[in-house]
């Protein structure tokens, strides 16, 4: 199935995504983490591009999606608005269900988007990640704080650019190795250094936004949620059941013998889990766009 690179100006910035599959199928929205690009999902895309129309956006500041001088454009509110715009472009009538899949920082975005999609959401899959509120609470745990040392480092202005320009390849190779990926499974080095420069801004924006909204009530996702974690993940502690249940009505939690990228380390297990999970989703056409989404879109204060 042919993959197309789509690009569009969204709220003043060039925004790109990879698109494959039929426009009559439900949408599978794959959100990558740091320091990856959407190519990290090649394996899943190949498995599910007949069942879904697969959309893989480039995170703000990575590769084909232009960076922004405004840090707020890297936060979840702004990125969710960008994703709504992409979804409107792909499915103008909003007549198809969306299954959101996120990994790492993409997982934070996936939780935020799932909370806003309401009945257009078919299901949510999160790999080795937490919602923004969970992540901020988790940072109070010294063990998680120790694992997230780099988040602190990247709060220094221009540190992301410095790391991306001078140390990117080595550091990211180290991160992938630490995260449990053998060299043959690690993504192409050229794409890593391209992605790294501005993507670090996401950490800066998310920390600010997380602290500001840490007391905000969580939106509980009513649709099926699958949370997958590697038991050897050196960056993210697995969430407890209470933590996940505070965000989702009926979550399924899976712990695999893997590191930070379980879908690359254990593709067969992940495939079988996803096949089973997708089979239980109700992916028939949703009602037209919901009031909550319209309200959210009308508060477009991040332009």
């Amino acid at each position, binding site marked *: 199935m042919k993959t197309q690179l789509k690009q569009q100006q969204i709220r003043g910035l060039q925004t790109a995504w990879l698109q494959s599959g039929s426009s009559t199928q439900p949408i599978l929205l794959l959100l990558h983490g740091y320091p990856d690009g959407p190519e990290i999902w090649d394996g899943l895309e190949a498995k599910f591009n007949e069942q879904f129309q697969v959309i893989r956006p480039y995170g703000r500041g990575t590769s084909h999606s232009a960076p922004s001088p405004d840090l707020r454009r890297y936060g979840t509110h702004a990125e969710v608005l960008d994703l709504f715009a992409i979804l409107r472009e792909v499915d103008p009538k909003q007549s198809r269900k969306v299954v959101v899949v996120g990994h790492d920082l993409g997982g934070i975005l996936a939780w935020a988007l799932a909370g806003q999609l309401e009945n257009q959401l078919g299901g949510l899959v999160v790999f080795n990640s937490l919602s923004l509120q969970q992540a901020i609470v988790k940072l109070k745990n010294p063990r998680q704080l120790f694992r997230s040392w780099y988040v602190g480092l990247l709060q220094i202005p221009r540190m992301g650019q410095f790391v991306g320009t001078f140390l990117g390849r080595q550091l990211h190779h180290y991160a992938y190795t630490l995260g449990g990926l053998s060299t043959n499974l690690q993504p192409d080095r050229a794409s890593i250094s391209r992605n790294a420069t501005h993507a670090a801004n996401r950490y800066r924006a998310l920390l600010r936004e997380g602290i500001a909204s840490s007391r905000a009530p969580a939106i509980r996702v009513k649709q099926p949620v699958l949370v997958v974690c590697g038991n050897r993940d050196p960056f993210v502690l697995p969430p407890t059941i209470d933590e996940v249940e505070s965000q989702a009505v009926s979550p399924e939690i*899976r712990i695999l013998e893997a590191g930070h990228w379980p879908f690359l380390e254990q593709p067969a297990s992940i495939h079988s889990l996803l096949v089973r999970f997708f089979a239980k989703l109700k992916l028939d056409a949703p009602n037209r766009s919901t009031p909550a989404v319209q309200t959210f879109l009308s508060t477009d204060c991040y332009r």
Partner: protein
Amino acid sequence: MPRYNPFDFEKLAAQVVRQRKHAFDLNADIPWQVPIDYTRFLLPLDSDAIAFPGAAPEQRLALSQLMGLIINSTIAEMESVIHVLRHDAWTKPLRAYPANPEMWELGDLFFEEENKHALVFNRYNRLFCEQAGLDPEQVDRLLPKAFGSWFLHAIRANARSGGTAFWWVVASVEEVSLELFRQIQKDKNGVEPLYLTVHKRHAEEEARHHNYAFLMLELLSQKNVGLAQRLRRKTDLLFAQVFSTGWVLSELHRIFEVKGMRSDHPFYETLAGCLPLFDKVPLSTLLQKLFVSAPYVGLVLNTKNHKKTHQLSQTLGMLSAPFPEPALNETLLNENAA
């Protein structure tokens, strides 16, 4: 790759299916209507009749039957008592360190099956007493009790503070019950048939689910804990050994209550007649027997007999009590005894 992998959800799912498919029915799959032959041994004994050297044939029979009832009761108590600890030792840690849904399913099945086993063993003991003309409540005074014991309090306190002593005890009990059946099986034509059937059914289910305690131990060993708790966790097996050994020894002491019952039934009179034989055994020999050579008792007391538990404890670097190397005596039925 760990020996017991709690993250291999496909294998665990297959185990769930297997356990559900082969589970026995408490009422239908055991021939309770068959009368108990109380002229037969329940357990084959060694030549020293555990710790009663020189026992006469009728004394060996009574000791074998009492030991059979004690073993049933010990397993039943241990398998009932785990329900009291279910929340602290199972639900709480699994919620704090999430596991695959199959671990939950297997756990539910495990507790369900253990409850059934406890019912089976208690039912056998009651039937035995009724058919042998013994008052079940009186016999109960000779049998071990875990509810309300300091052993239970200690294990519960350990579980509440995040320890794994409970699962070390469970792992040992599972191994003991399987090994026990192997020993009964050697004299399957001589032991009481219903007793054999009960233990056979029990062993079959134990064989299917005995790995659950090991899966929990593997899972909990991977839980991220602070340094203090990590160090303390190393002592969980030792803690379990100290309290379970103490409990078993103190509960075995109940046999001396038979002195006060000797006039109530010939069974008690025969047993009371064995006590002088026990008194003749020097303390050092007695300890050597109980921890090294006595069948059943040595099997329970000396955790070096629990090979899988011992292996896992070494893999996880647990501190363990320095038990002597076991050398269990051969067991024989009465007619073959020396």
